[in-house]
């Protein structure tokens, strides 16, 4: 489903942009706390929870690049909340600050309906950087409230069937 191209859904897209802007403020507040105190792992966890909200809505309106950023940000946020390697957390906080800045620009491009502007943002380089960072946490099992790999709708349907539902 891609509501992004549907004029009747434009209002929802604008609402998403407005709501996301407010959530970006919250994300930056948590990062500001972490910049002062890298041991505040609860702020990394809260970062993961907030960016998860943006991810779900971004997927639903077909804003795939924003969703991908959020997916990686969520993974990094949750996993880094479980480590005590302060130098690595400081790197994480710096990269997440940059990520939120990039998300704001992508959000603005989405609001303006400006594909050219979105292309200029060179998000692929940034995704590569986020992916590299997420690899650092490979040994940590939990990536979200989830314990292992995620299921798609078909896998869930199969599992529900096998469980008798």
């Amino acid at each position: 489903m891609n509501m992004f191209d549907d004029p009747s859904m434009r209002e929802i897209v604008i609402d998403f942009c407005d709501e996301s802007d407010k959530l970006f403020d919250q994300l930056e507040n948590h990062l500001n706390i972490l910049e002062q105190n890298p041991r505040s792992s609860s702020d990394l966890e809260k970062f993961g929870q907030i960016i998860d909200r943006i991810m779900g809505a971004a997927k639903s309106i077909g804003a795939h690049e924003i969703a991908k950023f959020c997916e990686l940000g969520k993974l990094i946020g949750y996993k880094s909340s479980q480590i005590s390697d302060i130098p690595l957390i400081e790197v994480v906080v710096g990269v997440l600050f940059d990520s939120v800045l990039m998300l704001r620009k992508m959000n603005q491009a989405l609001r303006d309906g400006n594909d050219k502007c979105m292309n200029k943002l060179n998000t692929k380089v940034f995704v590569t950087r986020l992916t590299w960072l997420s690899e650092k946490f490979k040994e940590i099992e939990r990536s979200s409230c989830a314990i292992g790999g995620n299921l798609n709708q078909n896998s869930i349907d199969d599992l529900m069937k096998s469980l008798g539902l």
Partner: protein
Amino acid sequence: MGLKADMKILVVDDMSTMRKIIKNMLTQVGFTNISEADDGATAWPLIEGAIKEGKPFEFILSDWNMPQLNGLELLKKVRATPGMEKLPFLMITAEAEQGNVVIAVKAGVSNFIVKPFSAQVLKEKIDKIFGK
């Protein structure tokens, strides 16, 4: 639509954009009586209030990840309430892991739907839950 259009539905999601999207979809497939809450913690008083009024919700769609009371906790509260043991409860999630699905099934979830989803997929889920 086989199900009654004015079936009392509660949509619970902490992202207002998602609530709007889901409400739009439910309207598209013919439902008219839709309430919303921005967290499990704000949904619960609505659910209790509706029971007291003698007009309980007939279907709940809830996000899993919410900051105060998450979807699983809300589901457990609902299932622990006399008369709501069988209330249709559809869990919405952006990412679902097998272990979590099993936990939710044990807690009595009616079905799962993964974001992003279309109005058609939502309708299919609803039809399945209500045994159509």
